[in-house]
């Protein structure tokens, strides 16, 4: 079994989940509470990866981050290399690809918070930031947890974008899903089977653990 690939996938998924927790909260907050009339454009862009074929997203990232385009050139001048075919490139692509999986549940959680509680917090002197951390976030924790779990699981399982942007470099960009594909190509069904099983069990374990704890955590103040 290719432990290197498994380790790389885990590392990638943890990084993506972390980044999306940090970036997803403010984006979801804006999407939920902004009254800007063109907001739907941003919402559509955030949701784009849900409907776009991974190869299309991967293709644009590959080209856009490459040395011929602006973003790629800026990156190259700062860091001395381009992003495609590196772990960094994989990370950028995965974050973008999983963005809606984080933003949409978090945003749904925010929307579920009774508007009057937010207003009550304001009239009691709390700033918007304080209201966010003391009222909105605690009351929508389930949405945030769901968003992070989904982006984690989605990153472990992604294939098309990783292949386009990362290539297939052992230890650098060969994630576990690509490794399974390689093993199948090479007719190593034994190895493919074992790796796939590990991935399946692991994903299941993570999801049940987090959903289980999450429900208990949420029920504390609903218990009579």
């Amino acid at each position, binding site marked *: 079994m290719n432990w290197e690939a498994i380790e790389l996938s885990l590392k990638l998924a943890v990084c993506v989940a972390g980044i999306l927790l940090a970036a997803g909260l403010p984006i979801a907050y804006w999407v939920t509470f902004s009254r800007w009339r063109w907001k739907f454009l941003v919402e559509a862009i955030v949701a784009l990866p849900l409907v776009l074929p991974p190869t299309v997203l991967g293709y644009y990232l590959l080209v856009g981050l490459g040395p011929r385009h602006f973003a790629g050139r800026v990156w190259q001048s700062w860091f001395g290399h381009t992003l495609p075919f590196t772990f960094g490139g994989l990370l950028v692509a995965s974050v973008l690809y999983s963005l809606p999986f984080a933003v949409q549940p978090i945003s749904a959680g925010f929307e579920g918070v009774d508007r009057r509680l937010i*207003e009550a917090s*304001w*009239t009691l*002197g709390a700033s918007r930031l304080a209201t966010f951390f*003391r*009222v909105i976030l605690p009351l929508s924790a389930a949405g945030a947890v769901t968003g992070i779990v989904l982006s984690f699981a989605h990153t472990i399982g992604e294939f098309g974008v990783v292949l386009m942007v990362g290539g297939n470099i052992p230890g650098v960009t060969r994630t576990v899903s690509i490794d399974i594909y390689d093993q199948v190509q090479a007719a190593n069904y034994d190895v493919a089977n074992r790796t796939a099983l590990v991935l399946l069990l692991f994903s299941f374990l993570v999801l049940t653990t987090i959903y289980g704890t999450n429900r208990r955590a949420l029920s504390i103040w*609903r218990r009579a």
Partner: protein
Amino acid sequence: MSLEVAIEKNVAGFRLAVEFTADGAPAGLLGPSGSGKTMTLRAIAGLETPNRGRIVLQGRVLFDSEQGINVPARARRIGLLFQNYALFPHLTVTENIAFGLRQVPDAEKNRRVAQQLAAAHLDWLSERYPATLSGGEQQRVALARALAIEPAALLLDEPFSALDTHLRSALERQLRETLESYRGSTLFVSHNLEEAYRVCEKLVVLANGSVAAQGSKEEIFRHPPTLEVARVTGCKNYSRARRVPDGRVEALDWGCTLRVAQQFAKPPGHVAIRANHIRVHPPQKLNLENSGNVFPCWLAAMTETPFRVTLDLRIGAPPTNPADFQLQAEVFKQEWESYRNLPQPWAIELAADRVFLLPD
């Protein structure tokens, strides 16, 4: 100790333009649903931004469209009691009350929370979560939370509407006691006029987004300035009216002519009388009395409550069906017992000092 409000706000299909002042004594904001009560309250609290106008609380300008002043809700120091209380479900009673005291030093915070818990008789519930409290307890927590920040004004949005009737009177008494010791301005929104009458000294009556009347509650109830205000203050009986040459007033819809004690310079548009001011007597009274406003009447329908009876009555001729009535009288059961089995017509008395006139 005063609150001055003069604001205008336009929202899709509705225009709010209200102007009133409230001093130390609790003021009631009375009006039917959709008259703009809640929106006015929200504008004062800073949760809605008026299009134009000015809000001044104890000399502090909270909003002034001309000077471009709009103090945010969090800095207004206004205690708002929401209709559904809006308690934070993830915080205990103590944490809810302490929510607005973040900037207050710990010792002072604990003192204020303890004081509020004691005043609202909530000590034994201090560690409970809102979901485990009854409606009345939730209301007390919400009031304690609003008072803990020592607000310059207290705004109460229908504080009893979500409660069972049997809880209301006890909580209302408690609220009146609390308001007596409270030193800021109080604005009490209600569509229940009896409640507003008991709690408040002054009334502001809203109708269709503007102030229809304001002043002392006694004055507004005795002589409502318009038909709209008469309706909002619970007057059920009104008729189109015309003055006749001998100085009396003809009630066109009731088919009778009335003496009216009230001095009224303008031509009357309507004549009105409250249901509890109408008196009904046994038939003998018809023969004895011919100077006062006494007329023969027939019963169309009746509604009974434990102590009172509402009689739907028709003057002049027997009704053809239960909906064929002109006046509603509210009488004590004891009185009603004295004539209920006597033959009709009974005698209806619309006392000259109880009927009042309304301009067109």
